[in-house]
Structure formats: structure tokens, C-alpha cells
């Protein structure tokens, strides 16, 4: 379900840009009845413009769109006036070939000038993404409980002493539910253990011991599932320490020894964990306090060692070395360690929230989608409300009748081609932060533009908008559910099916 929504959202976002490309092509086709094979190459020019405005002029591509649109409008008008106008009455095949030729000239000239190297426009946000709809549509029951449990754990840790017990209990509940859904999740087991430890720590006597035992069971299970995990061993040792704190004499000593063993075993493979080293130092210090004679001295020595290592690991500078405690007497060591650890409460190491179940949205695509929507709305307004827009629509409906009504058809054609070009170039600029830029990039987009326009119905703007989004979604679904190599095949098969069974497209009846 998450995967489905994820591919739907990214498909719609890409589809918005596709829609822009398709609308450009459909306006040109609607007014001139010319299929513009140079459409993708005009888009490529837009990409290059955005690239050089960014690298040379330091203008963000989402801002330079505003510059590129009028610039490419003029360029499109020029193409129409100088080339396309001459073949408006020629065979449709010749019109197609002329645009193919123009496209070849554009792509090869760019190759001549900028070579065929791939260029990448890297902005600060090029690879950024954010999570959307995490809580609303999060369909994973395990994850919701796990994340909720984590939130409660965090809250309990910070809460007043009176609320702590209840919060820890609720966190335990959540983790218990999460584990019942996914028993193999060591993260939930680990955090459950922490929550149980939190509960146990706030109670006394037999109930506490039962809770501690439950926590150990969780840690044992988690450790079995993820044997190399340091955090689990650390939390386990921390829980043992807490239980030892409630006991006296030999019982406490046994628990502390066990905790030290667990932690030191974990530290072997994870020797730079500050919390781990501090915890180990604390355990050895506490053990030393319970003993006397040479055993105590050895424990003090070990505790000091870990203390020094913790200081070294905590320091941010690279060349820090552990302070030299050799030769320190046991009494001095005891004073030193008392100062450091008497009030020390080792923090727990909860596994973080599980992420990615929300929908990851690429930031540049999201921004470009918003801009696309803006441009499309402006375009609708222009075509529906302004005189020029209505004249363009009239020309698209019936060229001769429009001419008889006193519309300057040639001028409308120039405006239409200009509009189409500026839309394609705008799309190029909008996708430049996410796509490779090279002279031949156009042909892919030309093909996509055809598919989109035919799907929506040649000449229909609403159709092109819809077609763009459908193609975007079909591509991303195809990539997810079939494979990324076959996603274009999906698109082309869709295209053929529409051509064969509904050649007028989805919105074929209405013209613009």
C-alpha cells in the first residue's frame, strides 16, 4: 500500500511536468495542425539555458524559468515565422520532416557548442526529499505502534516522576502490540526492554524483579535476532545495573558482574561509544566499591581506563588521546571516579523511529509541480479570458472561419508556437535539477509528448494535462511493479492501445 501511494505521488509530480510538455505540443497541433518533432529539442534548449543561467549567472532554475519563458517564446515565434509558416499548406509529412530537421539542427548545434558530455545541475536541494502523509495514510500497523511507543518512551524519559510509570507502561503496551505483529523486529524488542526497565526502576521488591526478568527476556530475544547490535547489550547492562541498585551484597555484585561482562563484550566491537565506555567505567567503579584488596585495585584500574577512553571518544578533536591515569593510587582513583560517576545516570539507547513508511517526496519535483500548476492555471486564464486567447482557440477550431472573422491567423500561429516552445522550455528548466542534461535528451521527451497528446486527444489542453499525469503515474507504477527497464514499454503499449481503440483520445471531442 505504501509502495502504491509512493509511486502514485511521485508519478503525479513527474506527470505535472509531463503535462506542461504535452500542453505545449497540443497548442501547436491545435492551431497549426503540425506535429512538432522538435518539441523535445526545445525542451533541451530550456534545460541548457537553465544550466548556464545557474552555473554562470547563479540564478536558481526555479527562478530562471521566469526568464526562460519569454526568451523561448521569442525563439518559438521566430521558428514559426521563418520556417513553419512556409509549410502550413504543404503535405503533413513535409511538416513533420521540417520539424525533425529543425530538431536535428538544434541538438547537433548544442552538441557542437557544448559537446555531448552529460551535465548535472546540482542545487542545494537536488537530492533533498521530505516525508509526507506519514501519520495520515501510514498503513503499516506495526510501524504506527512502534513509532507511538517511541514517542511515549521519550515522553516518559522527560516526564515528572509521578507520570513516568504510567507512560512507561503505555510504551510497553505499544511495543508489545508492535512485537505481536512483527515478532522478528529486534528494534521493538529492544525498546520494549527499555520501557520495562523504566517501569521496574520505579517499583520495588518482587513486582520490580518480575519486570526486570521480563526486560531481560526481551533483550535476550533481541540479542538473538541481532547478535552484533551494541545498543541491545548496552541497554541490557543498564537494566542489570538498575536491578543491582535495588539489591544488596552478593546479589548486587553478581548482577553488576554480569552487566560488566555484557557491556565489555559489546564494547569489543564498538570501542568508541561514549555512553558504552562511561557505562563500563561506572560498572567497574561500582564493583570496585563492593570489593577490597587487589581485586578492587584491578577494578579501579579498569574503570579508570574506560573513563579515559570515554573522555577521548567524547572529545571532538581528532588527535585527542586518553588521559594517562597510570600510577594513580586506588584512593585517588576512587575520588576521581566518584566525582565523575556518583551522580551519573546512564541514558538509554532506544532504536529510532522507523521512517520511509511515509511518502518520500523529492523536494525539487514538489517545487516544480507547484510551479507547473501555476503556469497551467495562468495558461487557462489566458486562453479563456483574454482576447488573444480566444482568438487562438478560434483559430484552432476553424482556421478559415477565424480568418473570415478578422483574426490575424498568422499572428495567432506565431503566438501559439511561441507559447508551445516556452512551455516546453519551462518544463526543461523545471526538471533540470533532477535530470541529466545532454544534447540528445530531447528525443525521449518528444516521444513522451506525443504519447501524452494522443492520450488526451490532439489539441485538447485539458486532455494533455490529464494525459501527462496518467503517463507520469503509468511510468512510476511500471517502474515499481514491473521494472524500471520496462516502464517505457508500458507507456508505449498504453499509447498504442489508445491509438487503436480511441484515436480521438480521452478528451478528443472538445477542442482546447
Amino acid at each position, binding site marked *: 500500500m505504501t509502495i502504491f501511494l509512493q509511486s502514485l505521488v511521485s508519478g503525479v509530480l513527474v506527470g505535472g511536468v509531463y503535462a506542461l510538455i504535452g500542453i505545449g505540443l497540443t497548442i501547436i497541433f491545435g492551431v497549426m495542425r503540425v*506535429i512538432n518533432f522538435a518539441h523535445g529539442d526545445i525542451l533541451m534548449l530550456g534545460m541548457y539555458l537553465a544550466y548556464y543561467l545557474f552555473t554562470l549567472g547563479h540564478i536558481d532554475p526555479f527562478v530562471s524559468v521566469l526568464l526562460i519563458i519569454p526568451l523561448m517564446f521569442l525563439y518559438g515565434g521566430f521558428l514559426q515565422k521563418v*520556417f513553419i509558416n*512556409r*509549410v502550413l499548406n*504543404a503535405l*503533413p*509529412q*513535409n511538416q*513533420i*520532416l*521540417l520539424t*525533425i*530537421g*529543425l*530538431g*536535428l*539542427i*538544434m541538438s*547537433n*548545434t548544442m*552538441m*557542437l*557548442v557544448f*559537446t*555531448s558530455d552529460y551535465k548535472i545541475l546540482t542545487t542545494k536541494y537536488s537530492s533533498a526529499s521530505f516525508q509526507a502523509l506519514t501519520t495520515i495514510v501510514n498503513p503499516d500497523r506495526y510501524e504506527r505502534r512502534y513509532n507511538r511507543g517511541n514517542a511515549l518512551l521519550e515522553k516518559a524519559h522527560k516526564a515528572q516522576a509521578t507520570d513516568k510509570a504510567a507512560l512507561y507502561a503505555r510504551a510497553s503496551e505499544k511495543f508489545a502490540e508492535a512485537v505481536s505483529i512483527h515478532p522478528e523486529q529486534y528494534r521493538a524488542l529492544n525498546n520494549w526492554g527499555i520501557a520495562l526497565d523504566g517501569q521496574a526502576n520505579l517499583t520495588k521488591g518482587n513486582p520490580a524483579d518480575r519486570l526486570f526478568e521480563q526486560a531481560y527476556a526481551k533483550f535476550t530475544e533481541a540479542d538473538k535476532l541481532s547478535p552484533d547490535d551494541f545498543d541491545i547489550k548496552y541497554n541490557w547492562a543498564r537494566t542489570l545495573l538498575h536491578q543491582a541498585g535495588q539489591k544488596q551484597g552478593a546479589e548486587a555484585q553478581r548482577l553488576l558482574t554480569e552487566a560488566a561482562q555484557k557491556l565489555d563484550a559489546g564494547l569489543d566491537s564498538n570501542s568508541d561509544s561514549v555512553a558504552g565506555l562511561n557505562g563500563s567505567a561506572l560498572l567497574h567503579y561500582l564493583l570496585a566499591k563492593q570489593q577490597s584488596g587487589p581485586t578492587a585495585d584491578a577494578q579501579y584500574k579498569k574503570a579508570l581506563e574506560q573513563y579515559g577512553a570515554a573522555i577521548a571518544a567524547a572529545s571532538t578533536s581528532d588527535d585527542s588521546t586518553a588521559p594517562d591515569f597510570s600510577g594513580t593510587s586506588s584512593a585517588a582513583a576512587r575520588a576521581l571516579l566518584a566525582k565523575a560517576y556518583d551522580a551519573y545516570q546512564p541514558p538509554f539507547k532506544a532504536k529510532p523511529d522507523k521512517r520511509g513508511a511515509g511518502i518520500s517526496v523529492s523536494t525539487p519535483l514538489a517545487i516544480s509541480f507547484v510551479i507547473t500548476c501555476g503556469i497551467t492555471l495562468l495558461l487557462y486564464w489566458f486562453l479563456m479570458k483574454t482576447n488573444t486567447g480566444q482568438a487562438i482557440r478560434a483559430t484552432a477550431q476553424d482556421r478559415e472561419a477565424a480568418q473570415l472573422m478578422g483574426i490575424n491567423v498568422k499572428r495567432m500561429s506565431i503566438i501559439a508556437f511561441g507559447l508551445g516552445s516556452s512551455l516546453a522550455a519551462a518544463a526543461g528548466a523545471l526538471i533540470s535539477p533532477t535530470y541529466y542534461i545532454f544534447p540528445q535528451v530531447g*528525443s525521449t521527451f518528444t*516521444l513522451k509528448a*506525443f*504519447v501524452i497528446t*494522443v492520450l488526451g486527444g490532439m489539441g485538447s489542453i485539458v486532455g494533455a494535462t490529464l494525459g501527462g499525469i496518467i503517463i507520469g503515474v503509468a511510468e512510476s507504477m511500471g517502474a515499481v511493479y514491473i*521494472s524500471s*527497464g*520496462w516502464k*517505457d*514499454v508500458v507507456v*508505449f*503499449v498504453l*499509447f*498504442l492501445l489508445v*491509438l*487503436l481503440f480511441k*484515436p480521438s483520445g480521452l478528451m478528443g471531442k472538445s477542442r482546447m
Partner: protein
Amino acid sequence: MTTLRTLFADTSGRSTVTIIAVLAVCAALCTVPFFVHNPYLLHIMILIFLSTIMGESWNILGGYTGQYSVGHAAYFGTGAYATMMMLQFRQVAPWYGVWVGLAAALVVALVIGSICFRLRGPYFVLASIAVAEILRLCTLNLPSFTNGAEGILATGLPPFTIGETVITDFSTKVPFYYIGLALALLTILVTWLVQHSKLGYFFQAIREDQDAAHSLGISLTLYKNIALVISAMLTSLAGSFYAIYVGFVDPPTVMALDISVQIVLICIIGGIGTIFGPVIGALVLVPLSEALRSNLIASLIFKIGLVSPDSKFGGFLNDNLAHAHTLIYGILVVIVILFMPDGILGFLKKLTARRKGGEA
């Protein structure tokens, strides 16, 4: 038989001159390898033959029948891949593999025809592109069958023998020259036969007005498919020839949209719907784009003294002009469409006609 009769019935007056001229040119072409030993020149001649085959075969469908397929890379690629796969994966010599290619092209053409011929005009163009792209993507995405994006590299051609005698071991370009020449002549002959047969008139009737032709009892589906099959099989031959000549195929070089477009442009630039149009197209396009590719144009610019090779711009031209060899296709097609809608051949005909008219 009908075809043969028309063939001979027509051999009078101007046609006799044309036939003698063609035979003389053929004879001259056959002797070329005895005088020209420069492999690069032979290479260019072979490319001209290849382009002629491609252009002529497209001409039958596009020029005579009026069905502008921009997906001929599908058949070119089919021929190239079939021959190469038979050679590399099955150890079948290319002169047998070619037949596999032809059969494959026939099947592909019938499938594509049954899909695309339901559509007309620009929709047909778009459908032909889509089908060719689907075929290319399938080739790319089925590595276990076609070797995918890696392509297929020929490790060597078996020598061509008749009985025990080795005719050629393909160590020079000369055998390729003769194969190319023979295939080019074959396609020209096929085109000529088509043009001068009833079939050709049906094709042209479909080109001029589909509905009128249909009302006269010409089955559109049947004759469009016949045109497509002839065209596809000849294109497949070109593909097979390309594959064994170059010795390497991969999807971008034999199946991409660029190939389809180039095939169309050869025909359009030379003159569409004429027998010698594609020949002219190949004669103009191949040397020009080769000159760009091999930096001849850049060195010419230096030789004339327009730009010094040591200057920054000169160095730039020297480095980059070779990459833009398809630029010439673009420029030529724009010029042709705007100023010579009937191609170079049509333009020349018009010029001579005007001169004759002036004299009279």
C-alpha cells in the same frame, strides 16, 4: 509474367537510354575495386550502398504507397540482430542468417502492419515510432535473448566457400563492396519492378487518395501490407549487411529512432517516390556526413585559411565538428523541405525542364 511484359513493353525510346546508362554505371562500379585500393574510399562507397538500400526500401512504403513510417529501425534492427544472433549464438554463417533475418522481418512487419495500418496520417507516423521503440526496449531488456545493452560483437566471419574453393575470407573491404553493390542493385531493381507493375499503380493510387482507391476495389489493408513487407524485408537485408560489415550491433546503433529518421531523410532529401531519389540522397548525405565525421571539413577550413588550427576556435572546431555529423542531415532536410519539396532529384528535373522550356 505481367511484370516482365511491362518491363519489355516499356523498353523503348528514353527508357532504352536509361537502361544502357544504368548498365554502364553498373559495369563501371564493378571495376572500381581494381583501381581504388584506398580502404577509406571503399568504406565510403559501401556506406553509400547501404544508405541506398535503406532509402530505396523505405521508398516503396513511404514514397510509392504514401505511408510515412518513422519506425524502419525496427526492421533494420531485426535483420541486424537476427544475423548477428545466428552467427554468434548458433554459429550459423551470415549468408544463412540473412534468411532468418528476412523471415523475422516478415513476421515483425505483419505484426506491426496489423497494428499501424488501422491508422492514418500523423497517427500512423506516431504508431510506427511507438512500435519501433517497443521493439528497441524489448531488445534492451531481454539480455538473456539478445545480450541487452552490451550488444553483440562478431568474433569473426567464416570464409565464404563454394564446394572446396574459398571465394573470399572477408579480410579486405572488397567482398563487402561487391555485396553492397549487389544488394543496392537488387533493391533498385525491386523498386523498378514495383514501379512498373500493377502493384506499383495500386500503391500509388493508395498514396494519392486512399478512399478513392478503396472505392475502386483496391484492398487497402492487403496492399499496404504488401508494400510494408517488401520494404521491411529489404530494410532487414540492409540491417544484416550492416551487421556483418561493422561486426557489432547494440540497440542504440541499429534500433534507435535516429536510424528511422535517417532512413526517411535519405529518401526525402534525394527525392521521394522516384527510383533514383534515394541514390542521390545517399550520394549527397554519406560523403558530407563522412567528411564531417572524419574532420575533413575542419581541415578544409584550416587549409583555406578561414580559421587557424592553432587558434582557440580552430581547436574547438577540430575537436567537436566530427561529433555533429548528423547536423548535415538537419540542415539539408530543412533546405529541401523549404526550397525543393520534391527533393534534390525533383529540383534538378525542374531545372532541366525549365531550361528546355526556355530553349523551346
